[in-house]
């Protein structure tokens, strides 16, 4: 009941929601309204700040993972996600019903799955991502073909089943013997606080399969890489061919933000999210290395889940205004070389609220096919603004803010304006080099005037004489 009402409230409270979901919500709303209108209204008033609205499907290898990874799931539930746990081969699984997505987020903690149950398969998951859904995938050394296929769809090539990331130089003291319990240095994390959280010196424990990023796919993010000495191979077989990933190319955690802002995170390790790794102490096995009482796994996992489920790094465009300097409203058309003020409000989602975004490097482009002007916007109270002179070229232009930064959703705003040439009264009237022409005109006019007076009023002396 409580997640339902939170769900419905969000629709009524915010306008930036997709239509298809709001239809479904309104069906629910009617059902609820039947029950108890006042209760619902008061609840919705109470839940005013609860924006994190996420129906999340969690696919597990077996339901015991719910217990072994309880801290992670509890942190999701505490943040307002409505988690539905299913085993990955449950025959009743479905992501899409009547053409609508039943969930906004998908957690796949079922590395070994070969075929998903119900009507979920790799194609439906990719179309879920294409539809804007966010997916968190955790693999392990017994990875099935389904997840490997899903990985290649997202530009992440996962190594074969039974392989593991091995690092003989950076393994934990509690490693059971194959040097696959890896201590990942936080220096190998992506430098993007929105994705990985605030920098810490706590190392991360990892045990699982390695990945490489598809070099053709520029959207794949190397969230956590292995160290130079890491590689991925079968731990129990001698190396007979070049390993799938070697050194810093070995991805332990990869991310992807698609062009539609859907986010996907692949972790090579399911144990990475486990209670055991969250609570464990960590120390490299090399003599004299520092011991940390707790791993950085919990913080990293929480930051990753915040990012992948769109709680962090989400931007939106607010009001956009532009006008000539000294005026208040935009004209029907600007004239070339006008001095123009452009301002835009950009907001960031923080703790479920939209607050003004604080960025240093937001750029405005003035574009007619190609950009003519590209300049930085300066923060000015709650909005960003800049004053600049329009180029001396006329045509149909756009004010374009195209802000694409690591860890943030792609922010795009374009406003079309036309720029016309000078009117004929706006040209320079008296050009020094053309003075002879003006002089000839004016002397002619003066001559005409004087001549007309003289001609009309001259007294002929001879006649009068």
């Amino acid at each position: 009941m409580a997640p339902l009402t939170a769900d419905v409230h969000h629709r009524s409270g915010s306008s930036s929601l997709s239509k298809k979901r709001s239809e479904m919500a309104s069906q629910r709303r009617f059902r609820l309204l039947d029950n108890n209108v006042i209760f619902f209204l008061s609840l919705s008033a109470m839940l005013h700040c609860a924006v994190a609205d996420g129906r999340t499907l969690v696919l597990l290898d077996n339901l015991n993972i719910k217990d072994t990874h309880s801290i992670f799931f509890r942190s999701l539930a505490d943040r307002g996600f409505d988690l539905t746990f299913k085993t990955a081969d449950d025959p009743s699984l479905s992501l899409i019903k009547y053409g609508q997505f039943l969930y906004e987020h998908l957690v796949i903690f079922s590395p070994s799955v070969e075929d998903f149950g119900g009507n979920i398969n790799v194609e439906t998951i990719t179309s879920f991502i294409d539809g804007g859904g966010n997916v968190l995938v955790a693999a392990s050394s017994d990875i099935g073909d389904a997840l490997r296929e899903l990985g290649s769809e997202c530009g992440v090539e996962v190594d074969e089943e039974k392989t593991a990331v091995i690092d003989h130089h950076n393994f934990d003291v509690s490693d059971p013997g194959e040097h696959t319990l890896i201590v990942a240095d936080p220096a190998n994390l992506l430098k993007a606080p929105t994705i990985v959280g605030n920098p810490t010196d706590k190392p991360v424990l990892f045990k699982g399969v390695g990945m490489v990023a598809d070099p053709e796919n520029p959207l794949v993010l190397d969230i956590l890489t292995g160290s130079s000495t890491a590689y991925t191979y079968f731990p129990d077989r001698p190396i007979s061919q070049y390993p799938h990933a070697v050194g810093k190319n070995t991805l332990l955690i990869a991310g992807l933000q698609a062009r539609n802002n859907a986010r996907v995170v692949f972790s090579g390790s399911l144990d990475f999210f486990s209670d055991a790794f969250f609570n464990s102490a960590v120390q490299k096995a090399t003599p004299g290395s520092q011991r940390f009482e707790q791993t950085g796994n919990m913080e990293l996992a929480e930051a990753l889940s915040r990012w992948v489920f769109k709680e962090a790094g989400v931007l939106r465009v607010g009001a956009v205004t532009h006008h000539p300097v000294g005026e208040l409203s935009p004209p029907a058309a600007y004239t070339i070389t006008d001095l123009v003020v452009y301002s835009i409000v950009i907001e960031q989602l923080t703790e479920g609220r939209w607050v003004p975004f604080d960025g240093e490097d937001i750029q405005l482009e003035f574009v007619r096919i190609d950009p003519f002007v590209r300049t930085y916007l300066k923060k000015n109270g709650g909005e960003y603004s800049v004053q600049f002179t329009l180029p001396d070229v006329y045509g149909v232009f756009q004010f374009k803010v195209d802000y694409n930064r690591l860890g943030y959703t792609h922010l795009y705003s374009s406003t079309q304006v036309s720029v016309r040439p000078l009117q004929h009264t706006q040209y320079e009237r008296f050009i020094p080099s053309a003075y002879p022409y003006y002089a000839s005109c004016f002397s002619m006019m003066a001559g005409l005037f004087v001549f007309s007076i003289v001609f009309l009023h001259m007294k002929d002396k001879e006649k009068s004489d």
Partner: protein
Amino acid sequence: MDRSRLFGAFLFSLCLAGAQALSPAHHLSLADVDRLQNLLSQPFTDLESAYYSVVGLSKLGANIPDHDGVCQFIKSQLDPTSVDSVFFAAEASQAISGCEIPVSNETRDILLAAVSEDSTMTQINRAVSALASLGLPLASQEAVGALTARINKEDNVMAITSALQTAARLSQEAELGGILEEIEDLTARLDDLGGIYLQFEEGLEATAMFVTAAYSLSDHVDMEPPLKEDQVIQLVNSIFSKKSWDSLSEAFSVASAAAALCTNRFHVPVVVSAQGPATVSHSQPTLQLLVTDVMSQPLDYSKVLVESAYSVASKSIIFTQAPFTLNDGVFELNFMSTQPASGYYQFTIAVTGDSRLVANHVELKVKVSTEVAVTTMDLSVVDKDQSIGTKTSRVDYPSKSKTIFTADGHQNFAMTFQLVDVNTGVELTPHQTFVRLHNQKTGQEVVFVAEPDAKSLYKFELDTAERKSEFASISGTYSLCLIVGDATLENPILWNVADVVLKFMDEEAPATIQPKTLYVPKPEIQHLFREPEKKPATVVSNAFTALILSPLLLLLILWLKLGANVSNFSCSPSTVLFHVGHAAMLGLMYVYWTHLNMFQTLKYLAIIGGVTFLAGNRMLAQKAVKRIEKK
């Protein structure tokens, strides 16, 4: 003869391995027990949490601090009219010494009245438990009747578990057989998850309480519970896999189940784990095992025996039937005395000494590790056409070569080395023998796998012409590192051997599209305004202006000479109006040039022109009249 016996033993061990594959994957480590205790030691707020804390801690065998304070708290919170309250208080007071709960007759009557088939199962359970704890008499057979009746009404796991618990508090003379059968029925309801876990879908608490209840009832009636060994291990796995407990009651249930699994009379699961990693080496020749129960308490009375041990690589049996010796709570075996080669060994270990032990045949992978040394590291640059003799230079670990090697497209860089076991002198072929070239300027790294030949001599040759694509044809100084590692090596090597300058023949421009530049600001663009055209010198135009104005001047001068005059000018309004209008029209032309557009101009011109036309007409008429008058 000898071989066939060995083979037989091997087969036997394999069979054993098949049969006994399941061993507890999860248990409460000492750290887990500590955390469980911490959770249960939280200050309690009401009688229920006091019950969970106190009884839970006593199940873990932990000290309960401040007995008197707890007793006071229980007494102050006790509500003698509520079955629940009396139950919590009675059970908690049992767990601490010297705390007696005063019971009135009224309370006893309420408790006895609750033992009927009209109460819920929980109520019956709590009433019976409270009566038993307070040492009050109870008609057991009646209680059995009530339980049996309730089981038929409340057919869920929690209720039946409560019934089992209740039965364990009743007199042994009562007919508990019917309730005992419920254990088997419940066992059939457990869900098997992947052959490793066995649990109720109601959750961890239900599973843990079932185990507690089943063993306490079995102990009570002294009949082995109908659980198979594998099932016990699967239950252990699912109860202890969760390491972070959501609530006090969940923690209590785990503590109770742990206590039941450690102390019951029928099944005690054994957890065999190596102390530290399961590794032996020349410096640490003994294999040390910890044999504990699920709460990590050592089972000192047990005997530990290696049934067989074979090498994973060669499948040859090393030894059989070797006992471990107990040394200060740790079972030890000097494995290195048999001089095993480095690698993995599969041990089958049997723990005996008590018929209750479950999962007492364990498979254990033991690693024999050693140390490696790099010998005969030779570096050379070889000309491809072999016209110049090669000059090799030898480098010793861990120093770095002083000479810097330079290889261009006509030369190969070559490196040979051998890896030997420090302890035995045998050549080794570790899992990881990589050669890493790291460009110091761009940070790019290229890794090659060095492969041994038949004599375990590693050769690495770098053909710069062939490999240029891997280096993206970027010439420069690369530091050459040798990385040697293996799970069985205690000293992995990361050795910066030398610096190598690589020169590629045709240097291509680096790829234009670099994916990571997607997220950085683009370069600023300032619009370049068109430069105004260069204008001719104003002197020229001024001179020509003067030249052009000169005819007007000439006109005026000539007119003066000719005696032009305006003596006929009469100040009639029409004349003045005409000339003013005329001047205004000319002025309008000027204003049109500077300010107005054509439509505005035409509007003004119409007004001024109309007036001027009329005034001109009038003026000309007057002039004509005058001229006619003169004639």
